[in-house]
């Protein structure tokens, strides 16, 4: 498909009738426009022409009564019109959608027409033709803005609502529904065939019991299936609730964050309060012993003195005893220890040791001293321990006081909130937590129900096989139908898995090729796809890049959309608003240089802060830059599309 021309009438800031002519040759075209000039409106004009919807922030639909040009000053809903001319499969189509044609009762309505090679198509043929040309679900692969790109992140979270929808859209353009729907239709046919088989068996005496059992097993399997369906609906509904509540929270992000911070800090204060109490208790438990630690330095010093005194006394005592023994030997002429005779010469030698101290007195002094020493040793005391306990208690108190201060700061910020805000936000947060808990719970029940349904289905298959083997003539036709359908179902189930695997492989391969062109980080080696077509970046050693930057989210999303364009034969234009929003200069250059390889028709809606024109001209050489337009301000409510780059 190739877009040729867009005509707009009073659409957004495009007052009156204005035309945008797309370039007639393959390449990149640029539409320059400052913020607020109407780049997104032009993208929306194409979207409206094709699908009748206009998207705003967070991909929310915009009320069409607000879309018409307001330059006339009125705030009443005003009419507008878009006409998109495009070429597909050698035919030229002209699609017109007009809003605000009076329905005769003062209301508004929409009028759509599709002209194919000059023939006006009837409503039914028109709708069929449009659905075939470009199903709305796949618009996201050629018509998108930065926000839509951001949704690709959801593919990395298995089970996310947005991710599931995106996966379905991807599989749709790749043809998976042909197989999955064939599988589901054959399964339904098989189910009916088994009912017929059971009824036929019930008529025959020989197979009646088996037939009855098959019937009952079928009923159980039906119930299990219904249960799965009901739970699936519940999960979807809860997911919608979660999304809605999350959207309503988005507006109060600041207070939500403050509340979360306050709760965290309250917990921290509680924790530190407890720690402080514990540390104080530890110190208090030793309070009655602290005096020992206070006395300890003096006690240690005195003990050392007493040790010296004791040594001294011991030595004096030893000498006193020796002297006493010598004196005794001299006076008795016999050694008191060995009982030998002491001669005159020996007695002369012993004379100098006349006793100076009284050993008994010395002994009494030693006893007193040792008793003092024992008393001091009993004091003990561990100053290091007490000091440590006090330091820890002090530190815990300081930490607590700091945390309390931080909590007070948040409380002060929260106190500035408009009345009622916090209560409302708290309620929504609680509500969200409740929904999320229910969602998890219901998802678990769904998983159980699915397992149950499989078990029940297996029971049916087993009974049906037994009946078939029993081979009674009365069920022959039904048996054959069941056997054929069972085989067909198994075949289609295997084909679905096989086809999906191949698709993922080729999408991964193509996305990796594009990614290598776009990426400026040499260590990022390739992309890996998951079951939902989410892509992770891998290093050369195969380990994934965790927490990739928002710029790289953008690069990965571009790689995926480009890969999908390449893998699907449904090639089309690639039109994107703010394509470089989160990219640095190097990646901008890479993206710009790669775009001509992604699609034959690329249109970028940019402003000069986002893209340097000289750089663009330098990169898009050899005729790759095929056209330039710019949006000229006439007034705040009036923009004019003009050819060429802005002056």
């Amino acid at each position: 498909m190739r877009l040729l021309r867009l005509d707009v009438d009073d659409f957004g800031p495009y007052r009156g009738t204005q035309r945008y002519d797309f370039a007639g040759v393959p390449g990149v075209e640029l539409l320059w426009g400052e913020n607020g000039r109407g780049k997104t409106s032009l993208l929306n004009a194409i979207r409206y022409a094709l699908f009748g919807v206009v998207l705003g922030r967070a991909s929310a639909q915009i009320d069409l009564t607000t879309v018409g040009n307001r330059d006339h000053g009125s705030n009443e809903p005003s009419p507008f019109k878009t006409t998109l001319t495009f070429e597909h499969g050698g035919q030229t189509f002209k699609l017109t959608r007009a809003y605000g044609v009076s329905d005769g009762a003062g209301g508004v309505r929409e009028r759509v027409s599709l002209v194919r090679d000059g023939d006006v198509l009837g409503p039914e043929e028109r709708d069929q033709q449009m659905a075939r040309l470009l199903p709305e679900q796949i618009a996201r692969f050629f018509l998108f803005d930065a926000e839509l790109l951001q949704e690709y992140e959801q593919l990395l979270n298995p089970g996310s609502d947005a991710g599931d929808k995106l996966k379905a859209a991807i599989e749709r353009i790749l043809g998976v529904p042909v197989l999955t729907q064939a599988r589901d239709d054959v399964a339904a046919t098989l189910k009916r065939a088994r009912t017929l088989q059971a009824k036929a068996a019930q008529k025959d005496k020989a197979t009646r019991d088996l037939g009855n059992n098959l019937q009952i097993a079928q009923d159980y399997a039906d119930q299990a299936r219904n249960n799965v369906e009901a739970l699936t609906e519940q999960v979807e509904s809860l997911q919608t609730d979660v999304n809605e509540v999350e959207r309503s929270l988005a507006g109060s992000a600041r207070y939500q964050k403050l509340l979360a911070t306050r709760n965290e800090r309250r917990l921290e204060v509680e924790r530190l309060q407890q720690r402080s109490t514990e540390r104080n208790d530890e110190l208090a438990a030793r309070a009655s012993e602290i005096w020992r630690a206070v006395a300890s330095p003096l006690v240690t010093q005195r003990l050392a003195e007493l040790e010296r005194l004791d040594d001294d006394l011991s030595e004096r005592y030893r000498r006193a005893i020796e002297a006493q023994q010598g004196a005794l030997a001299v006076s008795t002429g016999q050694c008191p220890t060995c009982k030998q005779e002491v001669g005159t010469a020996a007695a002369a030698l012993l004379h100098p040791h006349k006793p100076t101290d009284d050993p008994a007195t010395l002994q009494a002094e030693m006893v007193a001293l040792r008793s003092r020493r024992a008393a001091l040793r009993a004091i003990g005391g561990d100053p290091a321990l007490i000091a440590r306990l006090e330091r820890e208690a002090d530190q815990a108190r300081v930490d607590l006081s700091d945390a309390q201060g931080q909590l007070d700061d948040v409380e002060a910020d929260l106190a500035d909130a408009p009345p009622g805000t916090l209560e409302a936000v708290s309620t929504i947060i609680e509500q969200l937590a409740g929904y999320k808990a229910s969602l998890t719970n219901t998802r678990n029940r769904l998983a159980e129900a699915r397992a149950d349904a499989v078990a029940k289905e297996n029971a049916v298959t087993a009974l049906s096989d037994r009946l078939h083997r029993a081979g009674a003539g009365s069920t022959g036709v039904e048996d054959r139908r069941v056997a054929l359908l069972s085989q067909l179902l198994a075949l289609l189930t295997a084909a679905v898995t096989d086809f999906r695997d191949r698709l993922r492989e080729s999408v991964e391969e193509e996305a990796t090729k594009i990614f290598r062109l776009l990426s400026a980080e040499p260590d990022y080696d390739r992309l890996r796809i998951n079951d939902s077509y989410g892509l992770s970046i891998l290093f050369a050693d195969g380990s994934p890049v965790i927490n990739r930057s928002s710029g790289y989210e953008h690069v990965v999303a571009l790689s995926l959309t480009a890969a999908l364009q390449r893998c699907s034969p449904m090639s089309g234009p690639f039109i994107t608003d703010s394509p470089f929003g989160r990219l640095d200069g190097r990646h901008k250059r890479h993206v710009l240089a790669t775009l001509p390889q992604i699609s034959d028709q690329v249109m970028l809606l940019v402003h000069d802060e986002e893209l340097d024109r000289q750089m663009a001209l330098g990169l898009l050489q050899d005729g790759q830059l095929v056209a330039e337009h710019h949006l000229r301000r006439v007034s705040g409510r009036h923009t004019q599309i003009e050819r060429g780059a802005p002056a």
Partner: protein
Amino acid sequence: MTQPAAAGGTERVNVAFTQAVEPVARRLQTRLRMPNLMDVARIAVAFAVRQDLPLGRPSDFGPASNANYNVGSLDPGRDLRGLVLALHPDLTDDPYRVIETLMNVGTLELDRQVNAGTVVSLQDLLVTS
């Protein structure tokens, strides 16, 4: 040579903060985060001996307050008594009377040093001077 102090004599069974010292002791209790006033009393005795304060009772000692303690509670292992006697082997006074003196003068000295900023926490009492 030395006479064992107070040997055989009848020792005091109660010791008390004086009326003037009791509020000072309570202030220190808060300051040092001690669970009991008795903990302050013990610390004050240890501090007094560390500071080598005189054992004699000052003339302006003053009358006892209601903060008085049985020595069995204040000094259950009699280690405080042992400390005083081990440091002052020549002591002839009743050791618990000395302890009572030290806990009061020690409290006043400690308070003085706290107010002077030389002691701000327990750790300042634990260092070797």
